[in-house]
């Protein structure tokens, strides 16, 4: 595992040799081929969270989470048609630079600050997930594991810049694919004799876990086909069209066509990949239907629960429910009609786990897959899966830290504080900001470990800000008559609307992007209709 990670980082740094200008450090000199960008984009999203939290999501909530990605291919098409050619022609380092060309400096600065806040908070979450892995694996305290991960990532990101990140991402994504495929095959192979894939799917289906398409509509339901197609599309549009951590990946492309191909590869590969990850979670669920799991998967929470006077009774209740579910599942797999007994036992297990979680105050969704990997897979495979998880973690953290540094330097430092200086100075400042954001990630990760399912926490956080950012980019690209002031006020109004929506609980978070974007566009158009003449770029 250590060798694999060392080899990947060394390869990335070797490919990044000659990174001695701001352009090569932040944009790889616009030389990257589509396949490197494509896997880098996938790796930047497929974080450790994807592995440990999405499999946990599959175990707990089934496969309906895959619908969240249904809007992604549509968003990719829109980004390829609009953002990619616009950013390439504008020859920008960041997406927000374009906003000054189109509107003015204050709109660019506002959106840059929103990005720094949102992505700055998310990078802590991204670092917390692999820290969980190392804590479970090595038994180290959370603080130490976070620090170790942070130092490794900061090291190669500061040294090699975006080129090192892209090539390490490329390797890490290949390891992740191997790790994912192996974990799924091993989960199927480890099922008890006579169960097999068909038996596992029968059990998971009876528990309501095999639900990749749900057509019932509700504003407050997080995952259904409608929220996935529309809300998911808006979120993906914001993410790939306006979020520097993604935009920076395809801005390194040697041409518009190379950047487009990298995004369209994601449009095709992302949904099947998420499907397989969730399927792995549901197979693990079937596995633990026949092999008794712990009451709680989080070792720390379990230890805490054992100290509680109610523990023996809760454990007894769980053991009884497990036996009933096991018996019903065994009969069901062999064709007997025991679905009602199975469901009843499943509800009892869920209620018992909820009771236990209430006592500990924790959430063990992120520990389910890890428990399976570390306790049931052979040592060599454990190493591969752990290397894949850590590789995934490093790719996302390095990408985010790099994009945060780029926006800090280009949109804030260079634009507001030091517009004229030698290229060497900006290169030095870029490295310094990269180190700063890495340290910041380590510190915020300390607060991110008890946010329930980390993958949901990241998406929820993004939804607070993405709608507003998407709205202003939509105004910039599609509404040429809208001026700077209208766009600026539009962003503020859109953000206010999103927070109002959240605190009133009127809709699920996937709709925040849609609502925020619409409010920004509407406000921008309304204000511009009162203005005598539209304001033009940079005035």
């Amino acid at each position, binding site marked *: 595992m250590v060798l694999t990670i060392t080899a990947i980082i060394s390869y990335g740094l070797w490919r990044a040799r000659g990174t001695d200008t701001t352009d090569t450090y932040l944009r790889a000199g616009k030389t990257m081929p589509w396949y490197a960008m494509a896997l880098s984009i996938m790796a930047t999203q497929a974080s450790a969270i994807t592995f440990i939290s999405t499999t946990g999501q599959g175990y707990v909530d089934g*496969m309906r989470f*895959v619908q969240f990605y*249904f809007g992604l*291919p*549509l968003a*990719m*098409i829109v980004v*390829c*048609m609009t953002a990619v*050619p616009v950013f*390439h*022609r*504008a*020859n920008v380092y960041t997406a927000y630079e374009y906003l000054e060309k189109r509107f003015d400096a204050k709109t660019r600065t506002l959106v840059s600050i929103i990005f720094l806040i949102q992505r700055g908070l998310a990078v802590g979450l991204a670092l917390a997930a692999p820290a969980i892995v190392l804590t479970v694996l090595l038994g180290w305290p959370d603080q130490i594991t976070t620090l170790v991960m942070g130092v490794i990532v900061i090291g190669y990101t500061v040294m090699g810049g975006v080129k090192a990140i892209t090539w390490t991402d490329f390797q890490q994504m290949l390891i992740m694919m191997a790790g994912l495929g192996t974990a799924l095959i091993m989960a199927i192979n480890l099922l008890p004799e006579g169960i097999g894939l068909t038996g596992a*799917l*029968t059990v*998971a*289906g009876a528990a*309501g876990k*095999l*639900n*990749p*398409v749900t057509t019932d509509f509700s504003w407050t339901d997080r995952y259904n*086909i409608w929220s996935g197609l529309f809300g998911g599309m808006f979120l993906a549009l914001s993410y790939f069209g306006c979020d520097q951590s993604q935009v920076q990946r395809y801005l390194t492309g040697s*041409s*518009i*066509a190379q950047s*487009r*191909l990298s995004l*369209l590869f994601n*449009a*095709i590969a992302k*949904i*099947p990949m998420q*499907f397989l990850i969730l399927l792995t979670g549901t197979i693990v669920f079937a596995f633990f239907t026949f092999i008794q799991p712990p009451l709680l998967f989080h070792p720390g929470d379990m230890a805490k629960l054992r100290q509680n006077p109610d523990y023996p009774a809760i454990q007894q209740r769980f053991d009884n429910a497990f036996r009933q579910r096991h018996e019903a599942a065994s009969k069901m797999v062999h064709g007997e009609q025991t679905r009602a007994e199975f469901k009843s036992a499943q509800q009892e297990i869920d209620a018992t786990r909820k009771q236990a979680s209430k006592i500990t105050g924790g959430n063990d969704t992120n520990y389910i897959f890890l428990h399976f990997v570390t306790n049931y897979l052979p040592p060599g495979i454990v190493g591969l899966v752990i290397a894949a998880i850590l590789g995934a973690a490093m790719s996302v953290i390095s990408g985010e830290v790099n994009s945060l540094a780029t926006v800090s330097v280009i949109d804030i430092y260079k634009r507001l504080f030091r517009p004229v200086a030698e290229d060497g100075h900006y290169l030095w400042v870029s490295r310094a900001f990269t180190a700063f954001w890495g340290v910041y990630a380590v510190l915020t990760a300390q607060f991110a470990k008890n946010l329930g399912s980390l993958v949901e926490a990241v998406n929820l956080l993004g939804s607070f800000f993405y709608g507003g950012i998407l709205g202003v980019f939509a105004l910039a690209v599609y509404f040429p008559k809208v001026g700077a002031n209208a766009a600026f006020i539009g962003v503020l109004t859109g953000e206010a609307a999103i927070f109002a929506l959240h605190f009133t609980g009127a809709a699920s978070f996937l709709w925040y992007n849609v609502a925020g974007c619409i409010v920004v566009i509407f406000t921008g158009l309304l204000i511009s209709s009162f203005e005598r003449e539209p304001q033009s770029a940079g005035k």
Partner: protein
Amino acid sequence: MKQVIDEPPPFLGSWRRIYLLVILYLITLITLFWFFGKAWS
């Protein structure tokens, strides 16, 4: 704005056709998932 050549895709001749292919792929995928869910529910 910098002059950047918008090259055609390496296959299918135009980007419009590529985008159409992606939409058809999405529809097929959702349909397959729907049948998968129905088969095991």
